[in-house]
């Protein structure tokens, strides 16, 4: 192959004088301004804009309906259809958690309990939401399908203590989840 020398394109007078580009720039910015005032910005509809630009105005409008299936919000514990805590406090999530946000204090289930054969359940289960990075590793590692990342994203508090989700709060966020793990059921 012969070497082909490509001539570098030279700027013509109009490009050198810089003025045309300025006018073009003004037209562009003004076009954006007018379009955003008329609620016609590119993508305003698909982004559910509030009427100015493409922005959704937060407290009044929420992104909730548009959250994707795979959205990773606050981690939470779930109970199964019989109201049993799924967590057996194996502490795998505590050890896998990269920012060490989870702290579990295991306890034994007393022998007179209907679920005595499960043997263990957490006495305390705290997730420090200041540390949590929403990576979803706890959900992945859980052998009992007891911890899930839900779609809650408004985790706020006035004190650091408010930001630690205890067991009660975690079950409140998590709710009931049916199916998946049936090994503890009498029927099976």
């Amino acid at each position, binding site marked *: 192959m012969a070497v082909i020398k490509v001539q570098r394109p030279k700027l013509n007078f109009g490009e050198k004088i810089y003025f045309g580009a*300025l006018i073009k720039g003004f037209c562009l*910015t003004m076009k954006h301004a007018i379009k955003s005032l008329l609620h016609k910005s590119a993508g305003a509809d698909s982004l559910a804009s509030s009427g100015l630009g*493409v*922005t959704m105005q937060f407290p009044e409008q929420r992104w909730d309906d548009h959250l994707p299936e795979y959205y990773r919000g606050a981690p939470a514990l779930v109970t199964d259809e019989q109201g049993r805590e799924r967590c057996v406090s194996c502490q795998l999530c505590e050890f896998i958690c990269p920012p060490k946000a989870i702290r579990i204090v295991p306890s034994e289930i007393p022998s007179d309990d209907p679920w005595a054969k499960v043997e263990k359940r957490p006495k305390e289960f705290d997730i420090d939401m200041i540390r949590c990075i929403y990576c979803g590793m706890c959900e992945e590692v859980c052998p009992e399908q007891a911890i899930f990342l839900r779609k809650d994203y408004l985790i706020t508090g006035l004190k650091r203590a408010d930001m630690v989700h205890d067991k009660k709060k975690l079950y409140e966020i998590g709710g009931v989840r049916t199916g998946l793990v049936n090994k503890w059921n009498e029927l099976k």
Partner: protein
Amino acid sequence: MPDLLFQLAIIVVKIVVLTFCVVLPLVPISVYFERRFCAVIQDRVGPNRTGIPLTLLGFKKDFHFFGLIQPMADGVKLFLKEDFTPNYVRKAFYWLAPALTVAPALITVCVVPFGSPITLFGHTEKLVIADLDVGPLFVFAVSSLTVYGITLAGWSSNSKYPFIGGVRSTAQMISYEIALGLSIIPVLMYFGELNLGRIVQHQADHGWLLLPLWQNGTLGLPDVQTALFWIPAFIAFLIFTISIFAETNRMPFDLPECETELVGGYHTEYSSMKFALFFMGEYAAMVIGSALIVTLFLGGWSLGFGLDPLIAKLHIGGFHFGGLIHLGIFVAKLLAFILFFILVRWTVPRFRYDQLMKLGWVIFFEAALINVFLAALIIAAPELTAAIIGIGAVLLIAVTAAIIWVAKVSEEHPKPLRV
């Protein structure tokens, strides 16, 4: 003696009303416009929440009013922040610098004519604080002091980035002062006048400098000379406007504070209200700059199209309030021009430093100089014979070509040793 007291009282009232009730409120308003307008350009919303929190007082809804209270909230925030003075700064200059940036900008307010005269109880009063006969010169003399504020801030901070910012601003502002001064000489020659009030009155009667479409109250095309003068007037307008951008350190030329290179520029070491004063100084300079452009080129307070005498005649009893309407028109024009400033800021990217210097010294300086002679030729044309006009025109074209040639030759880079 009572007469003197009366005069003094009027001056004080003018200072308080025009400076503190008209110009200073324009500063936060332009900050607000800056934020909202840039947001709109970028398809965002901008600050639209800060209002009067009526819900705290038990009402149903907050009073937002498009977030107009935002600049006030910013001001309160800056007041409440810690006013930190670093250890190794030169204290006296460090404290002096913010004041030196704000004060000149506010002093120049005094020669800007805000409206036509108001008559009350048979006493006519001009809507200008000091009716100086050297208006533009005074503005240049005082506003060029701003550079001291910035340079002192950069030097006294005893830190590298502010120092570079200060040095940059010295070079930039002094360079552009030349183009600024030279560019309005054609305008002053045209009016034959340095009193800004009379310049505006002339424009109200005979058409704005950039819109000469009426003559003594009747619409119509201008005569040949005025029409020809539109060309140097427009060149002067371009150079003057762009130089004002450089003088006020606005976006395409904001090298003294360019964040990407100099952290915060000359005000890196400043905090709290001292920083806010720099901020205010920049916006006040912008307000004054646009006031000057509007006054010189766009008819100041006049509404145009021959309607100004009608407005000036409006009165209730002995109170001729046309001046107040003119004041409103002036502020409206000012705000429109500030919006243009903002549009430029969010459109044009920052210049490189050598490009900035080249634009100032190689292009604007020469262009302004040639423009002076072009304007002189057009103004003097009716009294000259055709031959002299022709010679003048040829000479002007020759000099222009020579300058362009020199600029081009000086731009050529040395050839590389090997190709």
